[in-house]
């Protein structure tokens, strides 16, 4: 969880303590279409997972991303 928060913090340019489960593109201006791709790129690299298009598009919030990574990665400790 902390690694994922740090990834979001680094890519989106917001403090780790502001990364909450309901964080989304709607309430985070820096979570734009480019940074959505950068986030997936960083998460796939860090957790050694691969996402399909539908999975990536279904993740609407940070909480969704946590659940998705948790379901895919053996390296996720949350």
């Amino acid at each position, binding site marked *: 969880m902390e690694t994922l928060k740090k990834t979001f913090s680094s890519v989106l340019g917001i403090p780790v303590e502001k990364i909450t489960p309901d964080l989304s593109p709607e309430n985070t201006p820096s979570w734009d279409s*480019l940074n959505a*791709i*950068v986030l*997936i*790129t960083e998460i*796939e*690299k860090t957790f050694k997972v*691969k*996402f*399909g*298009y539908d*999975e*990536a*598009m279904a993740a609407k919030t940070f909480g969704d991303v946590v659940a998705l990574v948790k379901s895919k990665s053996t390296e996720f400790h949350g």
Partner: protein
Amino acid sequence: MDNECRSITYREISVGDQASFPIKITDQLVDDFGHYSGNLNPLHMDEAYGAKTEFSHRIAFGMMAGSFFSRLLGMYLPGEYSLCLSQTLQFHHPIMINADVVVRGEVLQKIDAFNTILVRTTVEDAATKKVLVGGEALVKVLK
């Protein structure tokens, strides 16, 4: 590497794929870039000024590397179907006039969800292999 635009699709790309081409950094190239960009800073445009600096000569614009990476991605890796989303640049060492350099790209990662590739991009000194400018590009592959 020739001037023909390659047409590599996302499926045809593998992690580790590379492309490269050589360039000689001529006075003309640097002058053209200065006039095109409007950056007429004397460190790059005035040899007499450059001679008095720590570099002993005027030096090429670091941002010229960005234009070389544009060619790398748009012509060769992957070529026709590329849409550049981002490009980082780190200027490690100055590029001197008359230097022979090699512009190189290597696919580091494929992001299947978005048909996007992460490419390490470098401008290296042809003789010493020292990386003068480095960076990474995110490129969406449109087909």
